[in-house]
């Protein structure tokens, strides 16, 4: 079977699976899978950029996804005017002082000659700066968080259209990636892995605890949408008429319509990014990236600045992931920091990349759809399986109840199994790198 035919068949298979869901379960479920599949595909494109092109082992995907989510809040939510008046400026001043302290310390380290005095000076700047920062920052935060804590208690956003948040999410993630990359790239892969794992946890800790920024565990809900609300549609004459003409209840129709609209938006982003990624892969830049990956020493000898190139691709990949994070929060309409779990948002994306085929953009997209489909469907299948297995057990037996209740955890097990099977029997993935 030729390469293109096989690849097309694989994509047709995934499309078939989603359609089957529509016919067997419900179209709403099918569209949900499609939407999250599109987002997953974008995330796995980003990770594939880092791992496939440059061999960078980033396990902090969750952090960049969460940053994208934060971007959605910061861009689209209306500003909390009272909070800004109460302490917004103070908080900003605190942040500026904090940044200035770090810059000052870095400058001292850079421009003063190496000596005991320099170390002392840096320490004094850092410790003094820290207390100064806390002195300015803390009262501001307290003031902001005291403003209507049940409703807002945070600074709010800029009140811009939520679509703006998507590129902004990419930018935020790119900025974070630049800082991490500066520090951790050029280290061994497992050090980079631990460093990125750590940064993801820190980003999450910030989202959970900095209430003035993201309302913390109180969550932000009601993020404005790029598409109309179902209720609005149900009150629009042309929509109700159209729905009646094809014989669907307007409530169902409106919900499906919204999902399709989201799918359209996400598909546009995915197609653009996939096109760009393909262009990049086959451009001189892409060839150089792979040359570096395959023989770093030779590339270095030819005068290529390897760390710089790695930084580039690390920032780019993280930006793509951040954008996907913003898209996901837009789809959810809310930011729930506690919902970010590394297994789901970091390691599952890795499963997508490996299963799809590291180094191949189409593979990453396929992996995104396929693994997401499995992730969603394993649960009902597991539940059904458990019911079959436990059928002979007496009703009300503790074991039966436990088994049925635990069926939900089958999905982690299955993902591990899928990853191990692919690694073992098809280590290059479903669509291998050319």
């Amino acid at each position, binding site marked *: 079977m030729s390469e293109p035919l096989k690849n097309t068949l694989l994509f047709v298979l995934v499309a078939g699976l989603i359609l089957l869901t529509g016919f067997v379960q419900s179209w709403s479920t099918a569209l949900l899978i499609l939407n999250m599949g599109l987002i997953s595909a974008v995330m796995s494109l980003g990770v594939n950029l880092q791992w496939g092109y440059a061999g960078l082992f980033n396990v902090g995907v969750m952090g960049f996804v969460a940053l994208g989510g934060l971007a959605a809040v910061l861009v689209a939510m209306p500003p909390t005017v009272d909070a800004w008046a109460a302490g917004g400026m103070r908080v900003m001043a605190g942040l500026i002082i904090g940044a200035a302290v770090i810059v000052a310390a870095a400058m001292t380290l850079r421009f003063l000659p190496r000596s005991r005095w320099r170390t002392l000076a840096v320490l004094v700047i850092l410790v003094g700066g820290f207390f100064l920062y806390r002195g300015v920052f803390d009262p501001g935060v307290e003031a902001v968080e005291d403003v209507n804590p049940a409703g807002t208690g945070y600074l709010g956003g800029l009140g811009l259209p939520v679509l703006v948040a998507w590129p902004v999410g990419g930018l935020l993630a790119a900025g974070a990636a630049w800082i991490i990359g500066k520090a951790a790239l050029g*280290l061994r892969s497992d*050090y980079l892995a631990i460093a990125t794992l*750590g940064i993801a946890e820190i980003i999450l*800790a910030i989202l959970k605890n900095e209430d003035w920024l993201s309302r913390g565990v109180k969550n932000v809900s009601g993020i404005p949408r790029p598409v109309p609300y179902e209720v609005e549609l149900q009150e629009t004459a042309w929509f109700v008429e159209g729905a009646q003409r094809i014989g669907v209840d307007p409530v169902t129709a409106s919900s499906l319509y919204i999902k399709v609209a989201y799918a359209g938006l996400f598909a546009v982003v995915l197609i653009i990014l996939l096109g760009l990624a393909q262009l990049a892969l086959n451009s001189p830049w892409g060839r150089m990236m792979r040359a570096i990956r395959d023989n770093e020493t030779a590339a270095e000898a030819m005068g290529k600045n390897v760390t710089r190139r790695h930084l580039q691709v690390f920032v780019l990949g993280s930006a793509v992931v951040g954008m996907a994070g913003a898209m996901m929060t837009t789809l959810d309409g809310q930011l729930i920091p506690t919902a970010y779990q590394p297994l789901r948002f970091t*390691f599952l994306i890795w499963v997508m990349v490996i299963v799809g085929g590291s180094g191949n953009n189409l593979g990453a997209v396929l992996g995104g759809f396929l693994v997401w489909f499995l992730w969603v469907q394993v649960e009902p299948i597991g539940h059904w399986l458990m019911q079959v297995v436990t059928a002979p057990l007496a009703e009300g037996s503790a074991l039966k109840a436990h088994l049925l*209740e635990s069926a939900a955890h089958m*999905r982690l097990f299955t993902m*591990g199994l899928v*990853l191990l099977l692919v690694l073992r029997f098809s280590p290059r993935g479903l669509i291998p790198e050319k």
Partner: protein
Amino acid sequence: MDLLNAIVALSNFVLVPAIAYGSQLALGALGVTLIYGILRFSNFAHGDTMAFGTMVTILVTWWFQAAGIGLGPLPTALLALPAGIAACMLLLLATDRVVYRFYRAQRAKPVILVIVSIGVMFILNGLVRFIIGPGEQRFADGERFIITARDFKEMTGLAEGLALKTTQGITLVTAIIVVALLFWFLNRTRTGKSMRAYSDNEDLALLSGINPDRVVMVTWLIVAALATVAGVLYGLDKSFKPFTYFQLLLPVFASAIVGGLGNPVGAIAGGFIIAFSEVMITYAWKKVLGYLLPESLAPDSLVQLLSTDYKFAVSFVILLIVLLFRPTGLFRGKAV
């Protein structure tokens, strides 16, 4: 008096908890470092290995408790620990047989093995949640304290109390015994020395007739014991929750890397460095400073450098500093 009170308060809130936590991290990091030294990859499934061993220990503890078997003032879990270790050993040997052995024969690169260990991590994580559920379990029983704060105050007449939890005492004693055994094994026995030789120079070890399969098997067995002990001690001291154990991966790895991957002494030092930094930076110093400083200077605020929610940031920053200035770790990571 104030100075004594300050010291007691410091011990109570910082030193004792940090020593206990440090011992737990050190045991975890020893497992990571052994796998790194012998099998030469970073095992991302280590947190879940700890969770698995602990889970079996908890199940057996429940069974003992139901049967009325106990250790009196000591937690029943200590009695169940051997069962947990044995189960964990079986699990790791099975994993090696089914998963890792193939990649060894293929001479797979370390980064591939890391990805493989992520697959194993998923499976173990699912398995543990499947069996015991994702919720929090407390399984410490027996006497809660060796000394309570009130007893201490009565004994010494100080204003501050020093409480010593049974679990903290057990953690320290167990950790010392386990580490002593481990070092005795590595430095004094033929098998232990062959493990160090294999870690130091694989090719030469092969030429010397050291059987790699045996070395690998013994490594897994030791790692299973270390991981289970570390997990049970942590669970006794705090509580058991699958997700928390997964998250322990970060401080455990930070400890191993800070000390120098592959170096057991480094792993222990790293564990204590990380634990002390975490506890000290997230501790509210108001009380201690209140005793030490003259009244006029006594702080109003809590004097907490970072909220406890940022404890991960501490391991992370230490890790980053060490990696930037001394990438091989404080103790040069090279051999077991």
